[in-house]
């Protein structure tokens, strides 16, 4: 599969737009939850972290690609969803009255960010939310690329992480708060000459000597999908070649290569 990356967006500690990615991160960098202008001010207060993060990164990527936010279809993804809301729900339900906030409940659906984006932009195209825990980054990229190559329609990929609070952090660690977005288009007819091209091959994943699938590197945090995509986005931002491998299942992987035309 071969596609063009025509736009990208990012939000993380010390990063409020793509060009800041090149700046060295500093220890004191804090993540403020963005206030994307696409969301009306009266809705911002009720919009949870994952929605605000996703809409911000998505808006940046569409602007960079010159894509109409009202028309492009989208794939949203996260390894854990909105951990803030999961923690709130489980804490409240462990109590005696079990009275949940209706707004927080309807925002607990994992497609809340995708829904928020479609409502904010009046976008009636299909959107989806995919999760694959430790394989979320690769599966979200794979699903977007299949959509682009099989339907020849531009697709917006948005990946979010929300820092893990409360008891949930005993299980998953503290995590991080970040969002990344890419606009992916078919190639070459519809893309600008300068867009980086991403080639991906689906391959059988090599097995170790005892026949079990190779395991992920020990430094890898399964709960952080943005971290795994960060090097690719950084290469897009800096227009430098890059290659890497994403796991999709116990026996399959996506071998990705980014090339730039200059």
């Amino acid at each position, binding site marked *: 599969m071969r596609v063009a990356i025509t736009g990208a967006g990012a939000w993380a500690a010390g990063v409020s737009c793509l060009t800041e990615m090149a700046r060295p991160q500093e220890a004191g960098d804090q993540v403020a939850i963005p206030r994307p202008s696409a969301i009306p001010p009266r809705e911002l207060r009720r919009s949870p972290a994952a929605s605000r993060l996703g809409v911000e990164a998505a808006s940046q990527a569409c602007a960079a690609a010159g894509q109409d936010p009202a028309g492009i279809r989208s794939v949203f993804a996260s390894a854990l969803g909105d951990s803030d809301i999961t923690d709130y729900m489980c804490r409240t339900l462990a109590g005696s009255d079990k009275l949940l906030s209706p707004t927080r409940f309807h925002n607990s659906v994992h497609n809340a960010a995708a829904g928020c984006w479609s409502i904010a932009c009046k976008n009636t195209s299909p959107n989806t939310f995919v999760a694959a825990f430790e394989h979320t980054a690769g599966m979200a990229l794979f699903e977007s690329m299949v959509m682009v190559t099989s339907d020849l329609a531009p697709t917006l990929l948005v990946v979010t992480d929300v820092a893990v609070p409360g008891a949930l952090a005993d299980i998953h660690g503290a995590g991080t708060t970040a969002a990344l977005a890419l606009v992916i288009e078919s190639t070459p007819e519809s893309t600008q000459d300068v867009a980086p091209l991403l080639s991906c091959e689906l391959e059988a994943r090599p097995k170790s000597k005892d026949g079990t699938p190779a395991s992920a590197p020990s430094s890898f945090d399964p709960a952080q999908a943005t971290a795994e995509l960060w090097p690719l986005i950084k290469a897009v931002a800096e227009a430098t070649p890059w290659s890497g491998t994403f796991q999709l299942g116990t*026996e399959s992987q996506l071998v990705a290569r980014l090339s730039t035309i200059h």
Partner: protein
Amino acid sequence: MQNRSTTATHRAHRASVAAWTQASACGSGRAQLHEALQNGCSGLRQNDYPDSQLDTWIGRVEDADSHRLAEPFASLDSRNNRLADLALGLDGFDDAVIAVREQFGTHRIGVILGTSTASIGRTESAYASLEDGKVAPIFQQPQVHNPHSVGHFVARRLGLGGPTMTISTACSSSGKVFGAAARWLDAGVVDAVVVGGVDSLCLSILHGFASLELVSTRQCRPFDTERDGINIGEAAGFALLLPEASEGYEYQLAGSGETSDAWHMAQPHPEGRGARDAMQRALDTAGLLPVDIGYVNLHGTATPANDVTEARALADVFTSPVPASSTKAWTGHTLGAAGIIGAVTALDVLATGHVPGTLNLQNPDPDLVYPVQQGSTTTQSDHVMCNSLGFGGNNCSLVFGRKG
């Protein structure tokens, strides 16, 4: 910069349906669901879910209460995964997967499952049993406490190593798995896909829908004047999909339509715009006219808003009405599993010709602009449709047909 316009194309992606099964409040396996539909026997009961005192009715899968995961999977234990495991053993489904596994190789078979709850019930239990504010060792299950728990479990339980993901778009989740799988098959990236949906009873869902005042204290009454909300149900269902050209299979996914309302997080578009466009797109991709459809399994949740807008959408698409009913008063609203239960019900109509009516519909709401089927009937049609509509304005309509 001037925006370039984006016109999403809607290509037809089809797939052969090689095997399918279900477990719901109506029983375990296709035959039990058929029998319940044929006899008009609801699977609903008064709420007896532990630790919930809500006055409502629920669709509980009794067989899941005593079901246990085999030893290799014990660390993945949750009610949701037990329900998945239970259904995988029904109607020869796991044998059908073993057969294609030997044919294509485990790395060439994908897994796409839909859920809204995933194993959140297990996370609730972890929070209710904290020890000194910490999660107890028995609940240290990172592969369970995340939205993908069911995809992870099913891939391992079936020994599949291909691309594996979970779609979680609320109540349209396990409708959308069919469209995604058909795209993968068309793109040639896999040779077969296990699709399905699993949602399980839990406090989040029961008390969440109660907070929105959408839960009925009685058995739900879809499309009735007196309808006043949903009954939550749990269910698991699966289908094995192969490329369209595969020989020897009787039924296929003939078309699918996915849209967004772009209207409200928890309310459908008042004119049913998104549902209408999803149905129209499903017909277009199937290359069919409305009159070709012999039955529509409706989302039909029995909330005041869903039923009036879905009826309006139906009336716009099916200007000459075809039989259409809601089966939610049999199974409850199974949320993330609603798409697969609707699909299994639609396939049952194709296979048997028995068209279920709408259980508990006694006085059709005069504000509904479509004549929803009250009693059962029969059809010889080669095509059926099912709708699943979710929070966030996420809509999916599927068309299944007899292969020509």
